[in-house]
């Protein structure tokens, strides 16, 4: 009895269509169907390709109405879409506004997808912190480090980075930005131990904690990231990560600068770390920065923006102040430094002084 032309196909916007959409996604949720299946349901019922994108989880799903998968370019902002959870978005590849069936498909598919994301997030097994630390321990024999890595799902040939945190256990960063270890708060308040790491530097007036997918009320955690290499080289990566951590800042007005620093990008600056610590006598340029910091709450952040951007205009944009406001601020604060930060040499001197100031604040662990 198989040749009945009863088929699951795009629904006409009749009175029963909405009920059928509800029934369809309710049954998918009941059967604990996966994301691919949910996106396929959206594509089939809406009769156009559907996507789920989630930068935070590195999810990119696209399904065509015939049920087959196909990759494509980035989503078109004019398409119909609905938020699923934090950065996850469900799309129907048709310009809006959605009709009644499309709207129902979006709503119900998003609800089903949200349930999957919450369920799978809870199911992620916590990485064993002792195993993470063992992989980083230069004193441990290599075979023990490799065994510990295997427990974390890492092959010896995997390219992995060590991550050093301020005031928290270390973690690893594997291919695909998969973070292993060190639970952090997410915007929904749940703990997660495996997830993508946000690279953007939390600068005042620049990339904010909210941009990073973290609730702005949660303190951004400083992190140093070591170079990528095979698992056996993780202790070396961790040493570099701890040096990089010393170049980070909390991203506040009192301590402006990047919250995340890659050892790969430090270059010769890394050499400074060996010579400076909390007990070292600061050089006059660092004392000058402290004088500037004392003159106004915005002063240090202003200098940091000037040091880190290519032009004063870019610095003003980053600080979210008018160009003329920046000029006024510099007129006020720059004389306290004692050198001209608009000269290339002066900018370098400023960058080095800011770096040294962070090294003084963040001692070797």
């Amino acid at each position: 009895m198989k040749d009945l032309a009863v088929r699951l196909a795009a629904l006409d916007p009749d009175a029963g269509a909405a009920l059928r959409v509800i029934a369809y996604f309710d049954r998918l949720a009941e059967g604990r169907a996966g994301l691919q299946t949910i996106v396929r349901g959206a594509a089939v019922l809406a009769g156009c390709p559907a996507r789920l994108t989630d930068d935070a989880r590195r999810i990119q799903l696209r399904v065509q109405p015939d049920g087959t998968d196909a990759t494509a370019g980035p989503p078109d902002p004019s398409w119909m879409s609905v938020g699923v959870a934090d950065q996850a978005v469900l799309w129907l590849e048709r310009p809006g506004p959605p009709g009644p069936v499309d709207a129902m498909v979006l709503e119900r598919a998003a609800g089903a997808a949200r349930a999957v994301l919450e369920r799978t997030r809870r199911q992620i097994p916590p990485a064993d912190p002792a195993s993470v630390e063992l992989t980083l321990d230069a004193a441990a024999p290599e075979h023990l480090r490799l065994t510990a890595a295997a427990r974390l799902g890492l092959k010896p040939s995997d390219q992995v980075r060590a991550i050093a945190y301020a005031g928290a256990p270390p973690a690893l960063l594997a291919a695909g930005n998969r973070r292993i270890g060190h639970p952090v708060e997410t915007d929904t308040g749940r703990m997660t131990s495996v997830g993508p790491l946000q690279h953007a530097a939390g600068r005042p007036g620049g990339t904010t904690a909210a941009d990073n997918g973290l609730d702005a009320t949660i303190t951004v955690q400083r992190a140093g990231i070591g170079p990528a290499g095979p698992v056996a080289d993780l202790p070396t990566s961790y040493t570099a990560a701890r040096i990089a951590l010393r170049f980070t800042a909390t991203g506040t007005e009192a301590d402006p600068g990047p919250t995340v620093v890659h050892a790969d990008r430090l270059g010769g600056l890394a050499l400074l770390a060996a010579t400076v610590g909390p007990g070292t006598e600061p050089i006059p340029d660092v004392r000058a920065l402290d004088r500037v910091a004392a003159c106004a709450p915005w002063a240090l952040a202003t200098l940091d923006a000037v040091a880190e951007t290519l032009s004063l205009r870019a610095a003003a944009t980053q600080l979210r102040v008018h160009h003329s406001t920046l000029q006024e601020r510099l007129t006020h604060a720059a004389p306290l430094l004692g050198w001209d930060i608009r000269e290339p040499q002066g900018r370098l001197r400023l960058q080095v002084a800011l770096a040294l100031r962070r090294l003084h604040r963040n001692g070797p662990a």
Partner: protein
Amino acid sequence: MTTVSPPPPFDPELAAALSVVGESLPPSLTADMIQPMRSGSLLADPTDEDLARGGAFTVARRTVPGPAGAPEIELLILTPAGARTTLPGIYHTHGGGMIVGNNRSGVDVLQDWATEVPAVIVSVEYRLAPEHPHPAPVEDCYAGLVWTAEHAAELGIDPHHLIVAGASAGGGLAAALALLARDRGGPALAGQMLLCPMIDDRNDTPSAVQMAGLGVWDRTSNDTGWTALLGAARGGPDVSPYAAPARATDLSGLPPAFIDVGSAETFRDEDVTYASRIWQAGGQAELHVWPGGFHGFDMMVPQAAVSQEARAARVRWLRRLLGA
């Protein structure tokens, strides 16, 4: 057996689709529903334009002799456009529980195959039960098969690459054709493609009992179909293997079989047993049991992941069998 466990769950994606399409297709069909089904909108048959697929196939019909003393039968012949050599032939017996359908029903599935593995499709119009009980349907099918084999050259078919194929009741008829061709010294068949075939009138396997009232074509529907075909003889001691191939005592000497079925349908156990018995008889069979599949899932929900797998497996078998 005394007790039967609860049925296996439907695949979640198929279950969701069933909740949408099932409202127009109840699991249990009874005799009084045969006529409404024949005239109802469920049977949206493809038009000649659909069949032509934009010129990819030429559509022809031939009226050929039926069984001795019976009316002529119509064969629908779909030939891939621009074929330069002879092609494999797929002789199709449509489904519909022996009680509904026509030679256009379900041929789109075969056209999908022929697009991947070029082949000439011949689909037979056979008389339906209950107006025409056994052996009318299977003898019509056999007469059309014999004519097709005898006219292979004219149809552009390579006679060494002629297979039978069908789904559901059509799968049962295809299996019966393989038995008949063997027993009567009829056309040499290269294979038999049996999709969720309906082959056992006894209707008492664990899967038939488990799935009662569930999914598509449940035990009640199956009883409706078999009773239409066999009348009071259904389930009794004297049913011919050409009506119900599961009744055959000898499954040796048959062409290679492809058998697929869902784990959550009435026909699961009779189809698995048929494959096992072919192997036990020294024959060749490829068996796929798709987890959580209801009857005809791949046709009703072609987009589902498990449907895509099921459809792809058939084409892969055809490729290996026909060397395309």
